[in-house]
């Protein structure tokens, strides 16, 4: 991941943090990353207005906003049908994480949760991760946001998959000869041919 280069000079970032200190730290960090367009908000109301008007390339939200405002903000951004940030990458920052908060963050539609303190390296690595995130977007009654499944293990045992690309749990009849163990080994551990 460290080999990737990012050019964030044309990106716009929305920072939503509950204290000016944290806003200033994150603001300086993104200035260091050469981001020129940084919008800082200290309340959810301010952030909602900003997110309703302008399309951002990245939104960073503090989980510790008063009254769990961060989760409502993220959920609101995701559910705004024609909102400019419905699909925007959203990073949630957490201090002391109360049990269930991470689950709540993911369920509200955040792309990623990162624990404080957030050093420049941690932030840059997470932005790289977000830039390379190619999960599908899910829009349904109970959830709007990036696919919460980060790995494809298929549907739970005994259940029919709901996605069009979920494979059936029923294995069909063989359509060709079985692979030999040597062929399987070669697939899993390919070796260079020796001349």
């Amino acid at each position: 991941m460290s080999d990737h280069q990012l050019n964030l000079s044309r990106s716009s970032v929305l920072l939503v943090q509950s204290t000016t200190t944290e806003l200033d730290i994150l603001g300086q960090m993104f200035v260091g990353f050469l981001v020129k367009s940084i919008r800082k908000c200290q309340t959810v109301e301010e952030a909602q207005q900003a997110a309703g008007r302008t399309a951002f390339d990245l939104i960073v939200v503090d989980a510790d906003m008063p009254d769990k405002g961060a989760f409502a903000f993220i959920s609101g951004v995701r559910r705004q049908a024609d909102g400019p940030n419905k699909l925007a990458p959203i990073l949630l920052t957490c201090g002391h994480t109360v049990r269930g908060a991470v689950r709540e963050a993911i369920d509200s539609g955040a792309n990623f949760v990162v624990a404080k303190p957030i050093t420049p390296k941690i932030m840059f690595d997470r932005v790289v991760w977000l830039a390379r995130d190619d999960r599908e977007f899910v829009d349904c009654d109970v959830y709007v946001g990036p696919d919460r499944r980060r790995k494809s293990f298929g549907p739970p045992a005994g259940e029919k998959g709901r996605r069009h690309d979920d494979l059936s749990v029923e294995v069909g009849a063989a359509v060709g000869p079985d692979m030999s163990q040597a062929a399987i080994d070669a697939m899993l551990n390919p070796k260079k041919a020796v001349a």
Partner: protein
Amino acid sequence: MKAPKTFRYENRLAKTVTPHGGMTVGEATRAAQLQIERVRKPTIAHIDAELATIATMRDLMKGGADAGALAKMYSAANRIVATAGLFGLEDLGQAAYCLCELVSRFQSTGKFNLTLIDVNTEGLRLMRDPGKHSAADRQAALKGLKQVAASVS
């Protein structure tokens, strides 16, 4: 009830990934670290103000638990968790995390013990000046703070 939709979409950040002309993690980290040094002084002052708030809330609870004071103590400690580690006070941040955990357990169980709060505030005082204590002593103190928080269940 609307039918669930899943679809691929354009990730706005994806266009920032470039093989050349961008910043590597090393370059970005150094530049950002230089930038955040500009706010070191006000951040340290902010941390000290939060420590003072914790001490004040502790004094308010000499006579017993107070939900409002516990909430303010938790918030102050949580703000230290967010900032201390960025300016060479990593152990202070961890001690503040332990206080958050302790207060959180008091809040969820309804239990309260001022002595356990005192152990934590003493730990915070110790970690505020890390140079006065060896790394081994600080680690031992942090281990103790974690055990104190874990003892409340």
